[in-house]
């Protein structure tokens, strides 16, 4: 890559960081209460919240790891990336009920929702918070690692320095303006990703001539070898399933679609919406923006396959290079948007997960343990914890690469196992009682830890599928076998809404 190209990419990306910081700084004037700081509760319209949701869901893994998997193993994972209808499904299932909870009590975090639904049950709140913390810290570490290494490599800097420059700025604006700044910067970063998607799709059609040409090239290429690396081609890698076991594709359909309703970055956005009747509109905005991100991952992986199959570039040493290999071949415009898009994806997800981790550590767990703190003091404590967690995460992510890799197996499924019994069952079914949800949450947490320790589940299903399934079953069975919880009238009104 030429020096001019590097300079332009870095300038463009740093401009995005500066704009994000300015938005975060500006947003502090909107932080007028602890509910605003921790949850942006009832503050924003569907366009802003929708873009923010897409940005928070689409992580650096979506933009780098998914095209890598598509390049290496074919189309199986497109079931995950083409799950744009999942937002409407999530809002239909839980949207009005979560938003309604903010009308019956103070809601600024998932812990508050749990308190309202389960009579301040400490065990439920702590187990859910711990599982959320594990899932969120894993995601956070993965975002920081991806962003720091990419820009460290690009600038010739130590990744730790790059990490502090990018994510240190992020930690500062998150500490200043909390979820308000987080949500607004995520909306901006979501917009960057959408624009990047549009640009890259146009570039893809210009270079390849369309998907038909890619299919033709991939079908005819056979084996391509260069620099000692061989890439085998077959038309089958471009069918719906690719070369992974098809049961994995099944998981990559069911977990992201149904799991969207259990993701903290989606649930927290349900109560951030000002008017609950705007949720269908928000479903449309998230679907459109998610479509552009999904399309981006497909065209860069197809583009990389086409370039290798036609001999225009050598086979990739590592699938994760697919997006960069395509952008580098396409030229400076594609490079500008790809690098900025990856950075936007890493920053938007990182800010959301940093905020949730900080809220869990500084607010939800102390509250469940009986430490009552005034709202103003809670905000002060959270600001400090946001900065401390930010610094620890940056150092940990960059220096403990292997551990981050292991933690990376946590994520979507772990978060789903934390929230599904508590919120989905709890807000759809009035017989989901404290004991049931408590045991479901405890079993979920234990199984997550056992899986983390290396327990092998039967078959080819990803382990989190088993954990989600068992924790749901435990919740329902224990709820049915134990005494029904008497709900207050407000909760009944929410569940009936």
């Amino acid at each position: 890559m030429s020096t001019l190209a590097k300079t332009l990419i870095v300038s463009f990306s740093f401009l995005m960081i500066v704009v994000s910081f300015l938005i975060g700084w500006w947003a502090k004037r909107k932080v007028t209460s602890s509910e605003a700081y921790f949850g942006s509760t009832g503050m924003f319209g569907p366009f802003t919240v929708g873009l923010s949701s897409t940005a928070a869901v689409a992580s650096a893994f979506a933009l780098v790891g998914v095209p890598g998997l598509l390049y290496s193993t074919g189309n199986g994972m497109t079931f995950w990336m083409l799950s744009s209808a999942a937002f409407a499904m999530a809002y239909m299932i839980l949207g009005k009920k979560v938003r309604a909870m903010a009308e019956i009590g103070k809601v600024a975090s998932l812990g508050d929702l749990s308190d309202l639904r389960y009579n301040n049950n400490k065990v439920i709140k702590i187990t859910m918070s711990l599982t959320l913390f594990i899932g969120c810290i894993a995601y956070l570490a993965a975002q920081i690692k991806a962003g720091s290494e990419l820009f460290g490599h690009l600038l010739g800097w130590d990744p730790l320095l790059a990490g502090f420059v990018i994510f240190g700025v992020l930690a500062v604006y998150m500490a200043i303006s909390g979820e308000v700044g987080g949500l607004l910067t995520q909306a901006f970063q979501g917009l960057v990703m959408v624009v990047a998607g549009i640009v890259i799709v146009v570039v893809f059609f210009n270079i390849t001539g369309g998907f038909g040409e890619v299919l033709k090239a991939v079908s005819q290429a056979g084996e391509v070898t260069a620099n000692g690396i061989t890439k085998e081609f077959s038309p089958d890698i471009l069918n719906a399933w690719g070369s992974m076991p098809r049961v994995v594709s099944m998981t990559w359909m069911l977990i992201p679609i149904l799991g969207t309703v259990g993701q903290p970055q989606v649930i927290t956005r349900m109560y951030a919406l000002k008017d609950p009747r705007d949720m269908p509109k928000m479903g449309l905005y998230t679907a459109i923006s998610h479509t552009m991100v999904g399309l981006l991952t497909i065209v860069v992986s197809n583009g990389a396959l086409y370039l290798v199959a036609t001999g225009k570039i050598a086979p990739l040493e590592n699938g994760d290079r697919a997006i960069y290999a395509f952008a580098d071949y396409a030229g400076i415009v594609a490079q500008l948007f790809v690098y900025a898009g990856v950075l936007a994806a890493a920053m938007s997800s990182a800010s959301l997960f940093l905020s949730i981790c900080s809220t869990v550590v500084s607010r939800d767990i102390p509250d469940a343990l009986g430490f009552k703190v005034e709202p103003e003091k809670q905000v002060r404590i959270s600001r400090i914890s946001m900065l401390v967690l930010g610094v620890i995460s940056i150092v940990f992510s960059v220096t403990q690469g292997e551990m981050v890799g292991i933690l990376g197996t946590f994520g979507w499924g772990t978060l789903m196992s934390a929230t599904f019994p508590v919120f989905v069952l709890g807000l759809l079914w009035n017989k989901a009682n404290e004991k049931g949800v408590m045991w479901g949450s405890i079993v979920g947490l234990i199984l997550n830890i056992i899986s983390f320790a290396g327990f092998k589940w039967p078959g080819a299903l990803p382990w989190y599928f088993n954990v989600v399934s068992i924790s749901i079953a435990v919740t329902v069975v224990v709820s049915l076998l134990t005494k029904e919880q008497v709900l207050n009238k407000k909760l009944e009104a929410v569940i009936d809404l």
Partner: protein
Amino acid sequence: MDLTGKKTAIIVLTTILWLVITFLGWNDVYLVSMYLGVLLMLLYMVLGVAKQGKVSKKLFFFCLVPWAIVWIISFYLADYYAAIFAGIVPSFTVLGLHPSFGATVVGYWIGGMLTLTAMFMVFKDEWLSKKDWDNFVNKIKEIDETEKGGAH
């Protein structure tokens, strides 16, 4: 469609579906699992859209049912065309895509958005009308006032 008294049965059914899908997944039975997954999602959505225990027929028949049909067909075609054209160049394409993947793009992705996302917009009042929300907010206020009165 009235769900009153049926919610527990539906939740039990969804739980059984989770376990069956997991068991089938262990045994690599992917296609049936995907069909059952659609049923699982449909049941959760039915529970979610219900107002005072009642499901809007418009939402059910013009949004949820078409969505379920489109997805089941797309999974079937994705599998069918993958088998028909296994190891060979397909004799036709869908938008330039392998027919198996074309079924996913057209049915699962675009079809999913047209049936769920777009129809959710069209029938948004069937999900939550202004009257529903205002009634809910007023009800909460009434409960608050009653509780305050009781406290005095």
